[in-house]
């Protein structure tokens, strides 16, 4: 690691190799400067929680990792592959990076099982039987194998989000991105999704998670990153972050979400 990121932006576990490296990343939506000079290195196996007020660029940050959004300046290197306009590389990275969305985005015209086997069959060119075995394995892990033949519309929000996690895992990603995975859920369903994510974290998956679930951050995160106005304001271990936030903006934000 040659970049001279300030303390806190370096991974907590330096013994691991790098999973994601962002160097001087900038992005604009028209005139709006949504990401400003982002420097961030994430180690393999690291769990990072990103928080911040709405419009701070945290979702955009993780959407740049698998090229759902294009960055205009700087470099992003994922799993040793730099993101450029090369479609082959984008494909390569998307195969390694799974993503879970706020609104689940399950395919409503396919059964739960078909949702999980679609990409393995068409992208990994897996035989259907093998893909179904893999899918059932992950559906069992998120504790809903019995729903396999139902359609997304027949499931509760929490169940749908767990299916979305299983669907991503079926591609055996090395990195998982979570974009506010519990924000659209009824309160009583948040826990089942968080439990699934905790289990995943305990297995050593590299995770970046945009969330305001500070309990989750305390429990599993190696680092918590606070973003505001397109910048990384503060990054620290959860202990330090919650006990002694350095910046005024962080303190203000925490006082607003931790009642």
């Amino acid at each position, binding site marked *: 690691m040659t970049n001279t990121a300030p303390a806190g932006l370096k991974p907590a576990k330096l013994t691991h190799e790098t999973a994601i490296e962002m160097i001087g990343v900038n992005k604009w939506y028209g005139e709006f400067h949504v990401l400003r000079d982002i420097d961030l290195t994430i180690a393999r196996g690291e769990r990072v929680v990103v928080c911040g007020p709405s419009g701070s660029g945290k979702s955009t940050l993780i959407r740049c990792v698998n090229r759902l959004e294009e960055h205009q300046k700087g470099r992003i290197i994922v799993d040793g592959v730099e993101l450029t306009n090369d479609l082959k590389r984008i494909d390569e990275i998307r195969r390694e990076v799974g993503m879970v969305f706020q609104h689940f985005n*399950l395919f409503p015209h396919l059964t739960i099982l078909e949702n999980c086997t679609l990409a393995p069959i*068409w992208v*990994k060119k897996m035989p*259907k039987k093998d893909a179904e075995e893999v899918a059932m394995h992950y559906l069992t892990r998120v504790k809903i194998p019995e729903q396999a033949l139902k359609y997304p519309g027949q499931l509760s929000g929490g169940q749908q989000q767990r299916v979305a996690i299983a669907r991503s895992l079926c591609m055996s990603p090395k990195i998982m991105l979570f974009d506010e995975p519990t924000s659209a859920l009824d309160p009583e369903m948040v826990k089942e999704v968080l439990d699934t994510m905790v289990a995943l974290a305990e297995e050593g998956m590299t995770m970046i998670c945009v969330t305001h679930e500070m309990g989750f951050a305390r429990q599993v995160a190696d680092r918590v990153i606070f973003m505001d106005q397109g910048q990384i304001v503060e990054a620290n271990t959860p202990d330090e972050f919650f006990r002694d936030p350095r910046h005024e903006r962080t303190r203000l934000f925490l006082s607003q979400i931790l009642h």
Partner: protein
Amino acid sequence: MSPWNDPRVRSFVFQGFLILVIGFLIYEAVDNASDNLRRQRIATGLGFWDSPAGFPISQSMIFYSETSSSYGDAFLVGLLNTLLVAAIGIVLATVLGFTVGIARLSKNILVAGIARWYIEIIRNLPLLLQLLFWYNAVLKALPGVRESAALPFSSFLNNRGLFMPKPLPGAGFDYVLIAFFVAVAAAIGFRIWARRRQERTGLQAPVGSVTLALLILPASLVYVALGGPLTFDVPTAGRFNITGGMVLQPEFLALLFGLVIYTAAFIAEVVRAGILAVSRGQTEAAFALGLRPNLTTKLVIVPQAMRVIIPPLTSQYLNLTKNSSLAVFVGYPDLANVFTGTVLNQTGQAIEVVGITMLVYLTISLGTSALMNWYNSRKALVER
């Protein structure tokens, strides 16, 4: 509680009253009509069906003669002409509508702009005006026979219609057709085989290009091997007339153009709405899973868009079929023109003739609806 305040009693009384009123109106109408028909000495019943029609029809798909054919034959000619223009119209309007609808969403500003203006102009002008435009301002304004515009493939266009070579299948042409249909069967078989193999081994096959090759190659090879067993009766321009070949009359062309171009503008909007109805999140989820854009379209967008598209598409098909009765304004001999036009005039039996025509349109429309509803129910989303 007074029984009058009981909603069940109330609704019973109101409905009973309504039935009485409707029954009385129907009785009065029937009584009046039969009374008037008797007084004017207009025959009732379907006795006219087998009487000689005695009027010519300019376009007929079956044998029809002014002197020997009956009103029943005229009905059949009209019905077939309606079905012809509706069937061809539906196919062409679907192709054009989907093309324009997708073009409207293109990132290419020029393509999207042309599609947008096409839709805005065509959709907002009355269909009758457009039919009159195509017939009077375009097709009838074409040069006369002597100044026919020569088109490729020995075709001619003039104010009497589009003259084209007429294919005359020679000996052995059956084998070309057989080769073609065998190839179609083979293409279907290949699809099934490719799907099964993908399920088994995960390998994907180039289904599209193989299908295309199968549709073209075998029939062409047999055709060449047999020395081209298809000749054409080519239209030739004489001094006063064009002889030979076959002709699409301007009445038919005007109606077809008008219906296709008008309906396609509506279908384009239906298609655009259907594609836009699939949320951006679906595409993003598919991309995030590593699906390429073309696979995303095929596996995620189109199946969902079709569910939104099919119901309004059905009503556009029905509109096209019903609008074909505007044929009377450009002189195309469709069912409404021949039957509720000439036959009604000659027999004077308005009730029977209009009634039969209504039944026919109802049958066509309800048949189309039933077919599309069946298709829709197979594709509908399962919720709860």
